[in-house]
């Protein structure tokens, strides 16, 4: 952008930052800043962080690359810098990774709405949305080094090559390391905006696609990795909130004086939906919380009973009036009239909770004059990069500095920043003291934001040959996309398709939960296919083969999964295999093998096999880790996890009554085969989890002839199905 060039002299910037080290990646030359519309913003950023935008280089050869995404175990702290280093030809052993400043104008990814730039680690989009950004930025950093070497040696840049943090000139047999180039660094007047053809051919990648250990793992095995809950600051005080078990209920505190008289209590801060307490230390705050006497009002959720509400949902599904239409391909009504057979099945899903191991928390310090704030948080970021804090404090966005920390699990819960806003409210009252707000596990469960309860009614028609001619999918539940996403069957050749969402609201807090609508909806779709195959006496593999005839990439995952799971070899007595196909960016087919303890109703998953097409895979071992974790979280949710609501009150409160899968319950193996591809990378974090419910249900059907249609498949429900 012309403005950038006139506003900031690169040469001047370099000069002003000389001394110990010079830094490439001067923000103005990188695409993020070139596309930044506000030159003032660029200047301010440079003033704040004079050594950025994406990379720092020092004379000893140390290269620091910024990661703009949250790290919650999915590996962004390695994958994004690795893509950058690949194009920069950096010596990976000399690379250090840091979180970038939380400034979306500079570090946001353009992979969202046109023209927008967001820092938002959700939807398994990180690698996909930053892939080209990091490649181009890395290539430009390399170009700066090459053009500086060209000037230094007085040779044409075209004659230079790079390798492993060195610039080489073959003709004169000269070689200089990136670090040694620091004193000679000069910003070129113009920088090419690299096109795909000028970037490396994926076939030539040296780092991408290799098994490179994750950068942050050593800090996660010696206790030094910093999560927000680990932050301690001088003068820090502690905040807790009592939020009640009834979502949306309003509190009236009846023993304020008693609480204020308790040791260490500094302040009571009432919110619309909670009573906040700030105390000198954590145990004092928790003591006071336990002593609160609160009258809670009724709320919209009052009277809601999660296990009884399905009869209402069934009525809603039966109403003539359609809901919001999501997909309409062909004419399902016409297809139904001429169909040989019609299948109609309801699938149900109870509420589930995120159960991220680090309870929600944040540390916020507001300046004495209230004009600025520092925030330490583990967040999946958001559409507001400053996480709602500027609005609460009534200050400009640039006055809030967010220090991103590692996330002790996200799974979608940490892209809702209610906990950051709460901490800002407390910190505003306590300024200038820093406040650490901690949710207890009980707070985290009872005031959770759950994957919605929902009902899926599927109606499918077949022609006389048994081909599926029409597929209708009605979702009943609360939360729009939270329940109604992932109803498309883009990889199945079905001429008539219809999907709709029918709203049913109960006043319960809801949120994206790993894979979001894919969990319930793939469960319904993929189970339905097997139920039809069962009734037709068709092999589920054959049925899907036919449906995928026009989707070669999907079909390749199906064939590979069938091969590695030895689909055509029957399981030993008492066991059976089930399959499911899922697309969530990447495409995957999963196969599981299960057995059932018919006396207890426990389902045991013995093996899981996955064939995955994720485009270019940056870190193969990490992709496998995501498959393993995704499957295990899936098994946990499918077999064990359930939030129930009675008269609006959440019935669970901690891990003793909200059970997660433990080590004795995991499969013996989870095997992943990654299919080779040079397509743009696609997300892998949410492809495995939604395979689990349907693969288990399909194996159960094969083993027992009985369908499982209500998640979770608790022992009671399994016994009920067996005895039906």
């Amino acid at each position, binding site marked *: 952008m012309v403005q950038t060039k006139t506003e900031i002299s690169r040469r001047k910037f370099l000069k002003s930052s000389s001394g110990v080290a010079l830094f490439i990646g001067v923000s103005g030359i990188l695409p993020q800043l070139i596309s930044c519309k506000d030159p003032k913003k660029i200047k301010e950023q440079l003033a704040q962080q004079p050594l950025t935008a994406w990379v720092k280089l020092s004379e000893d050869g140390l290269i620091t690359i910024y990661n703009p995404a949250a790290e919650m175990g999915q590996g962004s702290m390695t994958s994004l810098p690795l893509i950058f280093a690949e194009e920069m030809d950096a010596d990976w052993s000399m690379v250090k990774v840091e979180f970038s400043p939380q400034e979306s104008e500079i570090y946001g990814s353009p992979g969202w709405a046109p023209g927008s730039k967001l820092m938002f680690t959700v939807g398994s989009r990180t690698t996909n949305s930053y892939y080209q950004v990091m490649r181009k930025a890395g290539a430009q950093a390399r170009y700066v080094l090459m053009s500086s070497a060209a000037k230094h040696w007085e040779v044409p840049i075209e004659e230079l090559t790079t390798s492993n943090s060195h610039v080489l000139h073959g003709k004169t047999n000269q070689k200089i390391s990136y670090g040694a180039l620091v004193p000679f660094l000069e910003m070129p007047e113009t920088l090419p905006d690299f096109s795909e053809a000028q970037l490396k051919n994926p076939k030539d990648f040296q780092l991408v696609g290799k098994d490179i250990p994750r950068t942050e793992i050593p800090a996660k095995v010696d206790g030094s*990795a910093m999560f927000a809950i680990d932050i301690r600051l001088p003068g820090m005080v502690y905040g807790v909130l009592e939020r009640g078990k009834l979502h949306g209920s309003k509190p009236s505190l009846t023993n304020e004086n008693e609480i204020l008289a308790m040791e260490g209590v500094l302040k009571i801060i009432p919110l619309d939906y909670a009573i906040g307490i700030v105390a000198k230390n954590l145990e004092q705050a928790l003591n006071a919380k336990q002593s609160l006497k609160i009258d809670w009002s009724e709320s919209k959720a009052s009277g809601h009973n999660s296990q009884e509400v399905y009869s209402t949902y069934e009525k809603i599904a039966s109403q003539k009036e359609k809901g919001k239409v999501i997909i309409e391909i062909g004419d399902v009504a016409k297809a139904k009239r001429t169909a040989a057979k019609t299948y109609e099945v309801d699938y149900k899903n109870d509420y589930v909770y995120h159960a991220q191991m680090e309870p929600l928390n944040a540390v916020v310090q507001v300046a004495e004059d209230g004009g600025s704030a520092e925030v330490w948080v583990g967040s999946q970021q958001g559409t507001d990069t400053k996480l709602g804090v500027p609005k609460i404090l009534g200050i400009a966005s640039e006055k809030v500095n967010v220090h991103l920390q590692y996330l002790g699990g996200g*799974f979608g819960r940490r892209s809702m920043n209610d906990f950051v806003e709460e901490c800002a409210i407390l910190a505003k009252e306590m300024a200038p003291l820093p406040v650490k707000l901690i949710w207890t596990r009980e707070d985290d469960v009872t005031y959770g934001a759950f994957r919605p309860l929902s009902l899926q009614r599927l109606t499918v028609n077949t022609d006389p040959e048994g081909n599926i001619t029409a597929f209708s999918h009605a979702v009943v539940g609360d939360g729009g996309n939270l329940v109604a996403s992932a109803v498309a069957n883009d990889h199945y050749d079905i001429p008539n398709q219809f999907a709709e969402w029918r709203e049913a609201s109960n006043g319960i807090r809801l949120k994206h939960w790993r894979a979001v609508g894919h969990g319930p909806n793939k469960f319904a779709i993929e189970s339905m296919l097997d139920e039809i195959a069962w009734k037709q006496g068709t092999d589920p593999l054959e049925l899907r083969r036919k449906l995928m005839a026009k989707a070669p990439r999907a079909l390749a995952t199906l064939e590979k999964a069938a091969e590695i799971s030895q689909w055509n070899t029957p399981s030993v007595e008492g066991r059976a295999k089930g399959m499911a196909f899922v697309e969530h960016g990447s495409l995957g087919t999963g196969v599981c093998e299960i057995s059932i303890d018919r006396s207890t109703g426990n389902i045991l998953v013995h093996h899981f096999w996955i064939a995955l097409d994720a485009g270019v895979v940056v870190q193969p071992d990490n992709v496998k880790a995501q498959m393993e*974790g995704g499957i295990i*979280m899936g098994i946990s949710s499918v077999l064990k996890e359930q939030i129930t609501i009675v008269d609006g009150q959440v019935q669970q409160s901690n*891990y003793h009554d909200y059970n997660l899968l433990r080590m004795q319950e995991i499969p013996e193996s989870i095997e992943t085969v990654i299919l080779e591809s040079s397509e743009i990378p696609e997300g892998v974090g949410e492809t495995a989890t939604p395979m689990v419910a349907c693969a288990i249900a399909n194996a159960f059907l094969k083993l027992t002839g009985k369908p499982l249609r209500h998640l979770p498949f608790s022992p009671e429900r399994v016994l009920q199905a067996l005895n039906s």
Partner: protein
Amino acid sequence: MATFQLDINNSKHKVEVAEGTSLLWVLREHLGLTGTKYSCGIGQCGACMVHIDNQPVRACLLQVDNYADGQKIKTIEGLSQNCDHPVQRAWIEAQAPQCGYCQSGQIMQAVALLENNPNPTREEIKTYMNGILCRCGTYLRIIKAIELAAKTPTSIEN
């Protein structure tokens, strides 16, 4: 308020807290040993696993009062100087952690396992480790790491 003297990672720490304060808050919030994690507070998840006199225990369930008489407390920070305990090295080799939050507890439990049983079977590993929750689903790699560490001859000496 009372003053307690604790022996943690072979050094003495003085802390002034109310009687009955949980050892977990003392370690994390008063002494800054934040590698030991809070996750459930009721002894269900094991994220706060530490060793007291070489036995693995959940710090969230313990009152500081009972551990200030010279008992030797070891936290993840005291396991090694340079992240080079055989179990830590195995954890890195297996690329076990994802979010990492539960891993201090997993490692402290695994170290205790191998100190008691240097060559555990897979079933013994699962039984011993069953009390430590991991939400990211890293269990298979934890097993792999423990099996790797068991093959390292020095693992028992540390």
